Every structure is written in structure tokens, then in C-alpha cells.
């Protein structure tokens, strides 16, 4: 890790000032280098801080100490015009004035990026689609950008990582400080993304998870991506912030269709009605990407598709009762009550049959709901 120079140290110190917001930061750095801005704040002469909101704190904080903290956290500080600051954000209307990153921030250079986003309370279907898209896109040389939240985000990252060392590295933009892993259960995933790709944040080190940091994070995701894919989202939610930010930047938005009954697909189905491009698999995303970038679509690694997946259950032999249960469960998760009603079997027979199917890996029994594996 290189020693941070004065400008970068002051940039880091500016982000960490109490009461600093992305908008204020942009104003303070408008026309000033970080070092100049910092000195002006400490002197109380900065034109964007006539109220001396930051003067007292700027006088006692030592930027080099802040820089030391970033160094020990393994984080780099990125500002426009310096190496590492994502090229996609230069000229962006909401570009953060200062970013920090762990991993390699240059992975986005010379590589198309697709944001795969969606709800935290995803269904099995959504998780599977996100994971497939993540793996397929990474395998095709596209950097998968997401937010490291639970649900769709985590599945997209995990899928991208599953493409292996040959795939494009994953990129995450998080809302918290880079030293605050949230949610905790994604700690391992976070480390892997940081290890093979990059994790960006515009928040100061130590910034906890607050409701307002996530919409701000979503605009950066939209800014970094060439195409945004929404896998599953509810009628209201953070993913729609990303969609809105993408629309403002004329970044194409694609949506994965879902069952019309599924609450987790209400938002995505709505997007499709509104005219977003439907996406079924990686192929569809790559078409959208090629259109977005105005380049022919096959330049990417040719064998990106790992091989067709067969529909389990159609290939194997099922007896009459097993077939009835299989049909009754259908393609969406179904509760036991519904399966009982559809099959008219006794609970004992049904439970026994479902167990036999589960043992053959055809059925997944969840919390009162069954679905095809």
C-alpha cells in the first residue's frame, strides 16, 4: 500500500468530518484541491463553509492520522483525476467527490459492467436467477456490480465468484464504511469480493448501516454500470432507487420476469409493464449490453455458457403418486396445504412421497413450503 500523499490524506479527512454529506463534500471540493480545501476550512476562510460548520474539527484533526487509519484498513482513497477513480463516474451528475476502495479499483477499467440488484427478501427463484446471471456474466468477462446486501445482491456476487479465476472480478459498492461489514452474515463474501475484485464506498471508515446510506450507494451502482438488471424487487424498495438513478443517467434497465402472484416480483413485473427490457438469462443481458455499448455482442469469452441445465424430474422415472406430487408442487414454491388440496392424498402418503422425492434431490422441503429443486 502506497503512502497517501497530502491531497488524498486531506480527502479522507474531509469525508470523515462530522456532519459531512456527499453534497457538502462536492461543494467544498468544487474548485479546490483537497489540501487547499482542508486548509481553508481550518482557517475558516472556505467560501462553501461560511457558517464555520467544520472549522473547529478541521483544526484538531490530523489528516495524516486519518490516512494511517485507511492504510491499516487496507483501503485506498480515490479522487477524480487520480489513478483508481472509476472512469465511469467521471462526468456523472452524482459522482462522489471522494471514494474509498479495498481490493483493486482498476478492475472496472476496460471491462463492461452490469449491475445485478434486487430485494433482500428474495425467493429461491430470485436467488437462483441472480446466481446464474452472476456466474454467466462473470464468465463472459463482464464485471458484476452489486451492493453486498443479503438476498439478490449476495447471490449475484456469489455467482460471479463461482465463475472462478477466469471470470471477470466482482465489484461491490457498499453503504457503510469499508471497515463495517453489514450484514454480518456476508462477511466471508465481502472478503472474497474484496480479494478478487473491489469494494467501493463513499462513506468514511466506521460509518454504520443507516437507512439513508443505501439509496446514496445505489446511485453509485447505477453510475458504474453499463446495464442494470433487477432480478426481484417488491413494489417499493431500494432496488427502485437504483432503477431511478439508472434512468436519470440513461443506463438501460432490464428486469427478470416473475410469477404475477409473487410479492417479490411485483416491482420487476411492474418495470416490465413500464417498458424495461425483459431478461431471461445471460444471453439477454449480453444483447442489452452490446446495444448499450454500441459494440457487436460476441467479443467476450466465447464459451461463457457452462452448459444447458436439464429440468430435473422430466428426465427421471416417477411413479403415479410421485408424479402427482411433482405436478402439484408445480414450478413455484407451494405450501403443503395447497399440495394436499391438489392431490387429495393423505398427509402420511404425501409426506412419505415428498421425502422420497427429496431424497432423490428432486424436491426441496422448506418451512412449510415445498419447491422443485
Amino acid at each position: 500500500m502506497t503512502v497517501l500523499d497530502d491531497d488524498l490524506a486531506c480527502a479522507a479527512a474531509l469525508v470523515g468530518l462530522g456532519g459531512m454529506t456527499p453534497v457538502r463534500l462536492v461543494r467544498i471540493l468544487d474548485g479546490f484541491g483537497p489540501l487547499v480545501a482542508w486548509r481553508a476550512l481550518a482557517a475558516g476562510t472556505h467560501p462553501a463553509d461560511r457558517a464555520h460548520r467544520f472549522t473547529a474539527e478541521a483544526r484538531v484533526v490530523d489528516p495524516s492520522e486519518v490516512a494511517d487509519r485507511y492504510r491499516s484498513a487496507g483501503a485506498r482513497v480515490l479522487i477524480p483525476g487520480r489513478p483508481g477513480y472509476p472512469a465511469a463516474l467521471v462526468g456523472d451528475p452524482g459522482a462522489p467527490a471522494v471514494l474509498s476502495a479495498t481490493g483493486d479499483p482498476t478492475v472496472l477499467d476496460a471491462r463492461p459492467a452490469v449491475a445485478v440488484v434486487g430485494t433482500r427478501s428474495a425467493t429461491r427463484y430470485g436467488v437462483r436467477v441472480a446466481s446464474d446471471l452472476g456466474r454467466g456474466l462473470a464468465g463472459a468477462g463482464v464485471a458484476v456490480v452489486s451492493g453486498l446486501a443479503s438476498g439478490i445482491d449476495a447471490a449475484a456476487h456469489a455467482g460471479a465468484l463461482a465463475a472462478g479465476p477466469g471470470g471477470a472480478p466482482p465489484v461491490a459498492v457498499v453503504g457503510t464504511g469499508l471497515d463495517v461489514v453489514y450484514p454480518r452474515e456476508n462477511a466471508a463474501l465481502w472478503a472474497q469480493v474484496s480479494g478478487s475484485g473491489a469494494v467501493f464506498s463513499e462513506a468514511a471508515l466506521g460509518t454504520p448501516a443507516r437507512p439513508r446510506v443505501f439509496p446514496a450507494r445505489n446511485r453509485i451502482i447505477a453510475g458504474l454500470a453499463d446495464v442494470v438488471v433487477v432480478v426481484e424487487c417488491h413494489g417499493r424498495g431500494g432496488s427502485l432507487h437504483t432503477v431511478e438513478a439508472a434512468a436519470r443517467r440513461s443506463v438501460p434497465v432490464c428486469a427478470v420476469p416473475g410469477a404475477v402472484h409473487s410479492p417479490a416480483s411485483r416491482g420487476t413485473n411492474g418495470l416490465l409493464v413500464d417498458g424495461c427490457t425483459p431478461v431471461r438469462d445471460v444471453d439477454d443481458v449480453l444483447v442489452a449490453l452490446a446495444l448499450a455499448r454500441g459494440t457487436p455482442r460476441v467479443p467476450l469469452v466465447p464459451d461463457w455458457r457452462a452448459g444447458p441445465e436439464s429440468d430435473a424430474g422430466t428426465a427421471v422415472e416417477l411413479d403415479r403418486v410421485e408424479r402427482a406430487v411433482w405436478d402439484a408442487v408445480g414450478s413455484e414454491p407451494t405450501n403443503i396445504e395447497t399440495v394436499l388440496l391438489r392431490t387429495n392424498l393423505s398427509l402420511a402418503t404425501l409426506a412419505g412421497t415428498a421425502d422420497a422425492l427429496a431424497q432423490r434431490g428432486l424436491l426441496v422441503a422448506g418451512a412449510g413450503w415445498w419447491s422443485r429443486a
Partner: protein
Amino acid sequence: MIASIPSAVLSGVDGRPVRVEVHVANGLPGFTVVGLPDAAVRESRDRVRAAFVSTGLPWPRRRITVNLAPSGVRKGGAGLDLPIAIGVLVASGTMTQESVAGHAFVGELGLDGSLRGVPGVLVLADALADLALVVAEVDGPEASLAGGTCRSAPSLVDVVARCTGRRPWPAIVVPGGGNDGSPPGADAPVADLADLADVRGQVMARRALEVAATGGHHVLMVGPPGAGKTLLATRLPGILADLDPETSRTVSRIHSAAGVARSTTTLIRRPPFRAPHHGLSAVAMIGGGSGGHRPGEVGLAHGGVLFLDELGEFPTAVLDALRQPLEEGVVRISRSQGSSTCPARFLLVGAMNPCPCGTGGVPGACRCSPAARARYARRLSGPLLDRFDITLRVDRPDGAELVGRGAGESTAVVAARVAEARERARARGVRANAELEVSSLDRFAPLDPRASALLERQLRSGGLSARGLHRVRRLARTVADLEGAGSIVEADHVAEALTLRGSRALLLGEEVR
């Protein structure tokens, strides 16, 4: 002169015989009551005197001392009014000793000399079974359920007139109680109760209730508001068999002692259903209180169903107090003034939402954070959750799936199946399969090879603990009994038991992933 009149007071769900000794002597006129009376008994001085004056009975203008023996135990209730009044009459010479010999008295006096009923007459009559018990007219039918000699009168004057032989004791007519010609114990017929046929769909829940009623397995229903959890729970008592004579008597005694509304003309033959609100205190749940160990909800649910709606909203102390009755079938209440034991063997039915927003468990529907869900589920302690053999997901019925389906089976049909399967459990020497000892499982619930393979797989995958294994085996035994299977428990029975048992994920409202 001294009179000694037998009576009785309530102590928990038991009657305690008491002798009311009255001494009338020369001296300054006065009226004292000794022998640890409580406030109600001390106030009886004023009621007794007023009753005498207003009915024209002579009040001795002498010194009256009343002692309640044994004097070491606390006595409460207004039922001692009548024996005190009779004691004063005898001690002052208005009535003779002989006229009250062989009689015991229980009743509250009104200021006009009328006799009023008291709670727990059935229990008190049991405690005074070897004497002819004189009670208020309204208490006559209930007192005669105890089986001893019983007499009733509407007022103090009538008691005096009948004791002294000026008027005869009328026979107590108990409607439906056996002495009016109709068969005894004709209780509300099952059809009058909430019927299972009212429940649309809910095939899984119906089956779970049937299994619970057969095997005595406690049930926890998890589901969103409005799914029909309460509707289902109220249908459970209907499919339980009539109480056996001994339990019927015990239940009647408990309800009598607690003074809850009920038919007083017959013993309670149907299993009771208690659904206390979650605001109740630990004392209201297990019993106790200053008024002499009144039975709590667990006692009142003995032989029947205790339904706790919004289980997560009950205070932890109240829920933890359930552990002893669930374990031993009785609840022991100890206070500084003594302890008492109340039977409390009931079927526990809990209901709760899966998560704070109530929609958890439907894939993709719940927006609660995992932490909020975990916090919600943590309100129930592990040991309590452990008691629920059946954890059941109850969702709102899907109208589209119900189209073209008739009403489900009625309570009568299911009750008959339950009664038949319960007979098989009785042949094993237990009331229900939930009470089977671990050591007897291999004898009474042997597994066929596929069934034991299924259980072993569950154990290995960590889906089942050693203790859970026994519970599943008992549950599977009940399922096999209902299916009319032989002595061997088959794989399908075990699979159903595992499905009914549910999982922790189900409780947390987690989804299939």
C-alpha cells in the same frame, strides 16, 4: 350454652371441614368471631344480626363468641353465615341440639334473611359427604351432584322451620341430573359446539388437530393474522372424547371451586376450553391469590384445551410457569398460608404470527430483517417450544384452490375416529401416546426398516435431536393409530410426523431457499 355446627370452607380445589362453635354467655352484649376469619367472615357478624332482626328471629342480647375450628388455618368466604346463624340459634336455645344433629350448613345470608349460593358447593359437599348438607336453594342441584344427602331452603326462616320439623324438606329436583327421570350427565351435545365443518380448506391443520386430539400432542400454530388459527383452535375440544367419570368429577370440582359460569345441574362431561388473554398474570395462569388458592387457567383447562393466542405476547414469567403443569400434569401452589395442588393436565394450543409484519414464511413476502425475526422468535423459551410436538403453518385459504370442494368432515366424524384411535393408546396403559415412556417406545412403536432409515437420516443431517426423536416416534405412533396400521410404524407415518413436527425455520418464518 355452646353449639358446634359442622360446615366447610374452600382451600384451593379441596373442601376443608370446619366446625363453627358458638358460645352464648352472660356479659356485656357483643359478637366476636375468632379462629383466623378473613374479612368476609368477619363481616358475616353484621349480616347474621341483620338477618335475625329482619325476619323476627330472637337475637340474644348477651355475649356471643364464635370460634372457627381448627383455629390454625385461615377461613374465607361468606358460606359460614348460615352455620354461624344456626349456631347462635342453638346456643341461645331457640333451636335444640337434636334438631340440627347430623346436619352441616353452608350458605350466605342476605340482610332480609334469604339464603344465597356460594362458590365451590360441589367441593364443599364432597368434604361433608357423611352429613346431611343444608344449602341455599340455588346450590341444591350442584350440592346433590356430590352424591350425599342434601337439603335446600330459600331462607333462614325456612331452614329453622324445616330443621325443627314444622315443615318437611322438599326433594331437590335436578333437571337432567337423574332424579327427574332423564339420563344423568346429558350435557350439551357435540353438534351444538363449534363444528369442524365450518372450517373451509385447512386440510393440513385439520389433520394436525386430529392427531393432536388423538395423541395428546401440544400444537403451535404459526401464521399470518386472519388465517383462521383461533377458528381452528375452538374446534379442537369438539373432537376430543367425553371426559371419563373421574376426570369429569375433577373438572367439575375445579370449575365449582373457581366459581366460573357453568351448568350447575350436571357434572362437566365435555372437555373445557380456556383461552386467556395475554395480559393475564402468572397467578391468574397457575392459580393462587389472596382468596385461598383459587384455581388458575391451567387448572380450569384440566381435561381440555388451553389456547394461548398471540403466544409471543405473553410475559415470559407466565409462559415459564406452564412448565411444571406441562411436565407433571398438576400445579403446586405454595404460599405462606400453606400450599395446595390442583390437577392441570391439558392440551396446549399456541398461536402466533411468524414475524413482526405477520407475512413471514410466504416466499418473498416478508420484509422483516432476519434480526427482527430472530428477536420475535426468541420471546419463546427453548424449553417451552420443546413441548410442542406439532408446529403447524396456517395460511389464509386460497380461494382458487377451494373452488368445487365441499365442506370438510364434521366434528362428529372426526371425533369418532379420534375416539377409536385413543382406544389403542389406552390398551398400552396410557391416556394418550404423548405420555408413552421412552423405554416403552421400542415395544409399542417399533419401526419398519424404511422408517428407521428415514429417522437416522434426519438425525445425521442434524434436523432432529435425540429428544426430538422420541417426540417424533410418539407422534408417528399416533399417526399409525389413526391410519389403522398394525403395531409396526411405517415410513409414511414417520414422514407425516416429521412434517407435522415442523422446524425452527418454520417458526422463524424463513423461506425455502
